[in-house]
């Protein structure tokens, strides 16, 4: 059980950090290059929103991000289970 829990936690953390950083980079590029407002979403799940008004720009992360992290953790735990089974632990 322990390897799966660790794999889940580390996988979630890895996906969260990667998506947060990717979002920040996207926000920086969008701000510097004068992009107009946009959002990245899958249906009602919003991952990332960039807004440009006449006075300021803002970058926001939506509720899709924690869910993606949980999905990443599950995927990593599944991968750990697959490797464990293949190696006969």
């Amino acid at each position: 059980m322990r390897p799966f829990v660790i794999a889940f936690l580390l996988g979630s953390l890895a996906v969260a950090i990667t998506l947060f950083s990717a979002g920040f980079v996207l926000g920086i590029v969008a701000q510097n290059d004068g992009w107009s407002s946009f959002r990245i979403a899958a249906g009602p799940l919003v991952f990332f929103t960039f807004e440009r008004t006449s006075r300021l720009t803002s970058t926001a992360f939506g509720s899709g991000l924690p869910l993606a992290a949980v999905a990443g953790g599950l995927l990593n735990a599944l991968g750990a289970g697959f490797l464990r089974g293949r190696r006969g632990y």
Partner: protein
Amino acid sequence: MIEPSDRVELAPGVVLDDGTVIDVVRGTSVRANESALLMLEHANGVTVAELGHLLARAGASDGAGDARAFCAQLNRALLVNVRVRRGALLRRRLAAARFGVFARAPFRRLDGRSLACVLRGLAPTGIALVLLTLPLAILVGAWSVALAVGGGVVVHELAHTVALHGVPRALVLDGLRPSVLHPPLGAVRTTVVAAAGPLAPSLAALCVAAFGRSPACAPLAAHALGLTVLAPDGRNACGLS
């Protein structure tokens, strides 16, 4: 890719004691056969050719060939370091590339007892990575990305080293791929040591993104993928290695 002119020496943390090879870092000891002992006893900066003569005098039919094969094997086992003359490695790589072969540099095992030693050992790798990625980084207008590529690798290995505090360790360089050698640890310590490496540059990425607002956070954040089972560190952390 070992040539007769290369010099061979025992790796730091490897000692000979009464016919036994002791690896202080891995905490193992192996009884060596006569040929291995002869080689290791003389591995103090002599050339592979000189070791070949020694083997020939001891009765080997192809002393030079045996010495090369033996040195390669001992180097792969991280028991000896093979020093290649400056510039010779590049010449050999170019010569091998003409035949479509990638010539690997011998492994180098360096003293990792202190952070300063590890930092000194990692510095050439970090600088090489910065220089390799600098043209591309300048092309996309973000030179700091190149710094983050080199710095990220250094921070990654330093974090492993810090997590191994109090445990014998050595830095191993396989070309531009550094790693830290250590004895087997308990389950919790293994997880902490394995996760510390990718976690340190990943957290640095978040700080760079939040406070520096620089795209340099991208290569640092990429280390986070090392926490997954796709990478050796992630598998080690989950006890799958």
